[in-house]
């Protein structure tokens, strides 16, 4: 506790506060731009910061990191163009809300949810990091296979109204995920001999293409370029009702996001999908899902930010970067002579505590910056579609080019954008494609690793208590909904019968 307080003392100097503010502002800005993520920003700023005090630089990077997570929700909600995979779940309900004139409420619940989750996540990081890290290292390939199975059976809520179309989209995503050199054998798959496809297709490019380009092309085809959305209808900010529906979703999102984010191969996208499915299952307003349910924004946004804090657990305690941004922050650590790992807290404790303290401060600054901005952002919708989507197109291309640095990336972006348009025209939802794109390769690699380690013995998949527990969850998730549905039907029928006898 004393460590954390002295960390606050280090981080709260006017100069460091300024760096934190610069960090969150840049972070929010790059989070808003599709495709230009915090990883690239930190990498570009790294050489510039060599002259800074290590504490100041790390504080700025922490601000960029959290800020990027915040900013990502804005374009998802307002324009249905998530800039990264972790914001996809937010776009599902958030954009429906924006179109119904509830954009400000969606942005507000996203900002508050991010703040709540970020704060709880940071607290968990400062008190429980070593414990969580110990648990996380027990996660080997068999455990991941079981976790992926849980994810697959629970994300059905994301598939949309038609199971067939949702599954088709899932398969399209999984196929895109297969492109590139296979990690286990080093052989290229579905690359058609094109060297640019050897490294696979960047998830960011797929997300930007399917959502942003698909959306743009759809406006073009439908000739709705002149359309605009009424930005505000009814109450501008969170109503009491909204708040009452949001806060449990924030907490559940946080509970999913932090632990999964802490896993060495967890990441921030899987918990957002799980949170969306969970909210849809638990909601008393299920009929609103698909038409703008606020829980569907609150949960995934909280999960996203809690996972962002969780990602720092393996980074700080094992020296294991689990996202692109974490990898770059690791580089930053090393250039200041910090070696993340089990001894980081004992060897360079004061810097680490300053970093953790600045995460708290960054969170508060972000809330201060973003809550009032929500109303301003919503005004974006008053620009006609052609204006907005021209800008989106520019940044989508810029982002795709920045991600890979080759013209081929732009071609891939365009082709995938056309696929996105075809899917839209056929009424196939695009979100499941992103789920397939992320889950399928992960599940495949982990399954093959598990089997390689056991020399082909399938019993490795249930070789630890943790895997057994996860498979039981899978079984429950498969069996419970139909059973519950039948019971509910029976109950309502008996109720009808009793009421009719009267």
């Amino acid at each position, binding site marked *: 506790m004393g460590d954390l307080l002295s960390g606050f003392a280090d981080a709260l100097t006017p100069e460091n506060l300024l760096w934190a503010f610069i960090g969150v502002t840049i972070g929010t800005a790059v989070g808003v731009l599709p495709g230009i993520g915090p990883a690239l920003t930190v990498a570009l700023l790294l050489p510039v910061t060599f002259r800074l005090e290590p504490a100041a630089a790390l504080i700025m990077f922490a601000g960029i990191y959290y800020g990027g997570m915040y900013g990502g929700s804005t374009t998802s909600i307002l324009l249905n163009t998530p800039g990264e995979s972790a914001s996809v779940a937010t776009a599902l309900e958030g954009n429906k809300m924006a179109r119904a004139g509830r954009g400000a409420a969606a942005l507000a619940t996203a900002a508050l949810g991010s703040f709540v989750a970020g704060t709880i996540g940071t607290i968990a990081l400062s008190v429980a990091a070593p414990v969580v890290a110990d648990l996380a290292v027990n996660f*080997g390939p068999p455990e991941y296979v079981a976790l992926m199975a849980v994810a697959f059976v629970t994300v059905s809520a994301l598939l949309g109204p038609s199971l067939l179309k949702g599954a088709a989209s899932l398969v399209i995503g999984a196929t895109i995920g297969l492109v590139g050199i296979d*990690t286990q054998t080093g052989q290229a798959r579905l690359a058609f001999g094109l060297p640019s496809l050897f490294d696979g297709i960047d998830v960011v490019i797929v997300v930007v293409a399917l959502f942003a380009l698909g959306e743009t092309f759809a406006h073009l085809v439908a000739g709705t370029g002149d359309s605009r959305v009424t930005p505000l209808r009814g109450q501008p900010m969170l109503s009491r009702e909204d708040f009452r529906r949001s806060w449990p979703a924030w907490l559940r999102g946080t509970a999913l996001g932090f632990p999964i984010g802490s896993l060495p191969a967890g990441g921030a996208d899987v918990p957002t999908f799980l949170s969306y499915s969970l909210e849809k299952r638990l909601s008393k307003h299920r009929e609103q899902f698909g038409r703008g349910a606020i829980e569907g924004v609150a949960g995934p946004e909280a999960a996203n930010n809690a996972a962002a804090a969780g990602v720092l657990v393996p980074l700080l305690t094992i020296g294991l970067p689990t996202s692109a941004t974490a990898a770059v922050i690791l580089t930053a650590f*090393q250039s200041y002579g910090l070696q993340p*790992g*089990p001894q980081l807290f004992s060897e360079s404790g004061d810097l680490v505590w300053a970093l953790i303290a600045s995460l708290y401060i960054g969170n508060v600054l972000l809330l201060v910056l973003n809550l009032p901005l929500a109303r301003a*952002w919503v*005004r974006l919708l008053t*620009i006609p579609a052609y204006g907005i989507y021209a800008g989106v197109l520019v940044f989508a291309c810029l982002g795709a080019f920045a991600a890979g640095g*080759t013209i081929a990336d732009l071609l891939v972006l365009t082709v995938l954008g056309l696929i996105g348009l075809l899917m839209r025209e056929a009424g196939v939802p695009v979100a499941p494609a992103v789920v397939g794109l992320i889950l399928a390769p992960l599940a495949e690699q982990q399954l093959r690793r598990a089997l390689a380690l056991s020399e082909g013995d399938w019993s490795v998949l249930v070789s630890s208590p943790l895997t057994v527990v996860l498979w039981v969850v899978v079984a429950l998730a498969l069996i419970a909904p139909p059973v519950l549905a039948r019971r509910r039907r029976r109950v309502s029928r008996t109720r009808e019968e009793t009421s009719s006898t009267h």
Partner: protein
Amino acid sequence: MRITWRPAAAGPFVAAGLATLLLVVSLAAGRDDEGFLNGRQLRLMAPAAPGGGWDQTAREMQAALRDEAGRTEVYNVAGAGGTIGLSQFVRFERDPTQLMVMGLVMVGAIESNDSPVALDRTTPLARLLTDYEVIVVPADSPVRSMDDLVTLMKDDVGKVSWAGGSAGGIEQILAGLVTDAIGANPADVNYVAHSGGGEALSTLLSGRATVGVSGVSELVGQIRAGTIRPIAVSSPQRLPTLPDVPTLKEQKVDVELANWRGVVAPSGIGAEEERELEDLLMRMTRTEAWQETLQRRGWLDASLAGPQFDRYLIDERRTVTDVLKKMGLA
């Protein structure tokens, strides 16, 4: 067309514009310096994503070259063990201001990816540094030395699972070389590939792999903390960072493997230009900034330029191709 200016609506665009401007300025705000390049700026390609070894090398060079050659631009072209970057780099023929970081991993990737472009279409300038590999086991593993491991492998090569980085990369090459050296068949190696050293480490820590292989600098923290136990390093002599860990050769496994990194220029540059660039790089390796970098990152100085480096490259290519062929990867 009528466009009305609304301050509130412009907010996001102003923010976006500012951020872009900041990024561009941070890249371009260099100073013009007269040197042998006549004030032209060097551009240095890191053929990998930000954060990896080549990227780190390029960005450290950028810092160390500041006094020698002014502002250098670093950019990333990620993918396929550097072969995507290489295939773009060969287009800069005769341009001495373009440089690319490369290393053993690229030599291997060219073979295992069947890359249409090889390093013979570049002008090798210098080797700069090496990072050696270390073979580790979980702290509670019964394996205590290379002898134990060799016994296990001679019993059944497939029973020993190796967790390491990408397929065909340096870790798998080392696993193949070790297997070959003890007289077993490298094609039987049970190698479990991961996208990076960190992921491989987590598989090893979960207790499911027999041994792990990774760069020394990546694992030093874990080794010091005692969560994993080193059993051998791939260097010719013991390493200053891990003085208690014996080499493979000390343990009667005749293998030596360095994960070296170097720099190449495009083909077709003049002999004079080549000499000037090599001089520049050698001067850089002697700067205080560079020596401090090596120290900080746990890299070892391995400067080698001119015809010696050309010969070294040919040798390395032969060794790597040979073992990859035996493993059925090339």
